[in-house]
């Protein structure tokens, strides 16, 4: 192990944060470091927090950090916000809600920009999770960007997923749709002091009870959380949320589903790695060679079609042993 990886395993924030940066920036040496860290990963409990923009994900993350610290757990937080499709820049503002934990050495909060990823996370999110795992964090909270209905990459990364809903976002039909409503292990009805919260809870309950697949071994609990500015009840509710998530974790372990989820994650990781090792270098090479531009021109003039070209390129790189 190099000095850097040793430092990371000892929990050094500076080295860890720098490595995450290198992974985001796709520095070649970063991949090597990650390889060295890999044996030390996979021992943290990963909680995903997802929901629409402004639903209260960061505020709940802040509350959960507080709750986890009370339970003597060390915490890593990845907070993802969108990159601009125009400038490539990003405004990462999730930390604003988590300021009170800034100086706690056992809480490491890192913001990530999506940099073009469309699944609600950043490309480097999986790698960043591994870095935090290697640091020995007991629990890692992963907060997605504000999502719509189907930016669901979080299911490949988290063990337990909290879907945050707020009242007033549509009628019962919305709760029946596929996508985000299916991935929750725990539901939060946030801002539950607002009109429509009771109705949302009724609809959600009836949705969960009317599963066409018969009785399930885990029915996602619904935690209604009201006004943040009524600290006593807010604290009580966030403790309830933490209990619900912990209960789900226990359920995963007992039922054997934890193994299924880690398998799902490993499948995704190798698929992503293949993409990074095969597809991306090929595309990069085609761009630098100017070949891509030529092919694009031919496709525009209808002299060829994308599949013919892609198959020819695949044959060239996969069969000849030529490396991109």
């Amino acid at each position, binding site marked *: 192990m190099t000095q850097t990886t040793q430092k990371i395993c000892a929990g050094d924030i500076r080295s860890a944060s720098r490595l995450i940066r290198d992974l985001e920036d796709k520095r*070649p040496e970063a991949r090597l470091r990650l390889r060295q860290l890999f044996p030390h990963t996979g021992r943290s409990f990963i909680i995903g927090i997802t929901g629409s923009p402004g639903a209260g994900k960061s505020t709940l993350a802040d509350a959960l950090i507080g709750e986890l610290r009370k339970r003597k757990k060390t915490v890593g937080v990845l907070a993802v916000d969108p990159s601009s499709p125009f400038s490539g820049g990003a405004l990462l503002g999730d930390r604003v809600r988590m300021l009170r934990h800034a100086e706690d050495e056992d809480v490491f909060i890192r*913001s990530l920009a999506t940099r073009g990823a469309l699944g609600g996370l950043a490309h480097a999110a999986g790698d960043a999770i591994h870095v935090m795992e290697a640091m020995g964090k007991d629990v890692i909270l992963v907060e997605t960007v504000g999502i719509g209905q189907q930016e669901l990459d979080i299911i490949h990364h988290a063990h337990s997923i909290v879907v945050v809903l707020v009242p007033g976002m549509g009628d019962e039909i919305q709760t029946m749709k596929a996508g985000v409503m299916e991935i929750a292990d725990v539901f939060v009805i946030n801002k539950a002091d607002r009109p429509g919260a009771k109705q949302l809870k009724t609809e959600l309950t009836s949705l969960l009870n009317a599963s066409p697949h018969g009785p399930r071994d885990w029915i996602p609990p619904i935690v209604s959380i009201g006004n943040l500015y009524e600290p006593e009840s807010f604290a009580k509710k966030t403790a309830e949320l933490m209990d619900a998530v912990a209960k789900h974790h226990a359920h995963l372990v007992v039922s054997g589903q934890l193994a299924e989820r880690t398998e799902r994650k490993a499948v995704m990781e190798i698929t992503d790695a293949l993409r990074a090792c095969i597809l991306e270098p090929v595309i990069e090479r085609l761009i630098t060679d100017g070949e891509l531009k030529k092919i694009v021109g031919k496709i525009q003039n209808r002299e060829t079609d994308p599949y013919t070209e892609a198959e020819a390129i695949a044959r060239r790189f996969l069969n000849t042993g030529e490396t991109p």
Partner: protein
Amino acid sequence: MPERKIRVMVAKPGLDGHDRGARILARCFRDAGFEVIYTGCHQTPEQVAAAAIQEDVDLVGLSCLSGAHRILFPRVVELLREKNASDITVIGGGIIPEQDFPMLYDAGIQAIFTPGASLDSIVEWVRTHIRGRN
């Protein structure tokens, strides 16, 4: 090798809540293609320094309109030094009398922008001065 993305943090230490300027600058950095960590108002220098390290930013932009910059700005630089993070550039802005410039520069603040400074000039300064950090 792909170019590094510039990461900056915009923070307001101290008790001053006038964050319009800091917000405009954060937006402007965003539009310049930087990743901007915005941490809001009312922070201690300790919080600012800890966040800057956790986020591995190239630069911290401090805004202060209350007159407390003489204490708060140098303290952030000092804390970063203590934590072996003196490679993080610190710049300041706000209502800062010219007579305070020398003491702030001496304390390690690398640039000061006051009312009238154009947003372009700030972006340009950042681009020129943090390139080369590995």
